[in-house]
């Protein structure tokens, strides 16, 4: 799964989840990882199937959508200046204030198991979430994530 510094967006200053999704998806479009259609698709998907996850630390969200909108698999990380509310996965209307957004561009169904598992391990690790939310250096964020998400 591809992750570089250009896919790490810090201090995203938005008021709604639709805005943060648009900013992050647009960046993936500009870099060629996803098709233009991904933007609308990921926003629509989030409306119907919320991806916000409360953790023991900062809440996270893992927006993603169907594989047909993706050119090349990648993960983009968005760190919000101020939290925005995302619907909680599997809940009717409850929301959670999200600080960290992990946008997934996946090109194959049922793939990336190992990477997804490692991502979930990060969500269960308060110290790592704390670091990601507050670290100024994109290089350090990238290095930590690449180390944590490294698959064999």
């Amino acid at each position, binding site marked *: 799964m591809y992750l570089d510094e250009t896919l790490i967006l810090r201090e995203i200053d938005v008021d709604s989840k639709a805005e943060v999704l648009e900013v992050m998806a647009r960046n993936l479009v500009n870099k060629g990882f996803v098709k233009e259609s991904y933007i609308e698709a990921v926003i629509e*998907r989030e409306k*119907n*199937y*919320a*991806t916000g*996850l*409360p*953790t*023991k630390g900062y809440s996270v969200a*893992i927006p*993603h*959508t*169907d*594989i047909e909108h993706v050119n090349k698999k990648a993960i983009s990380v968005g760190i919000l200046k101020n939290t925005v509310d995302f619907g*909680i*996965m*599997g*809940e*009717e209307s409850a929301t959670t204030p999200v600080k960290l957004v992990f946008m*997934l561009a*996946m090109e*194959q*169904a*049922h*793939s*990336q*198991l190992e990477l*997804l*598992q490692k991502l*979930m391990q990060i*969500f*269960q690790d308060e110290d790592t979430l704390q670091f990601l939310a507050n670290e100024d250096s994109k290089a350090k964020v990238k290095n930590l994530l690449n180390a944590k998400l490294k698959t064999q």
Partner: protein
Amino acid sequence: MKKQILVACGAGIATSTIVNLALEKMCKENGIDANLIQCKITEVPSYEDTADLLVTTTIVQKEYSFPVINARAFLTGIGQEEVEAKILEELKK
């Protein structure tokens, strides 16, 4: 009889993959012979007649004849033991 468990999420690609693996492991450890089917939530109705249990990370708007268990705990670790116990209880019925 072999239990049929549906593992569903919105896209059928990300979170159901995680839950599927966790369930595989859980069934193995508890000696349960189950047939796990990973799918999109919109595909669930086609298993209406055969499924014994639906484990999902998304909202379920329809009523089904089988029990539905929310599996977000497998992603965040919060409350995971309780959810595992609930699933095991259903499978042992």
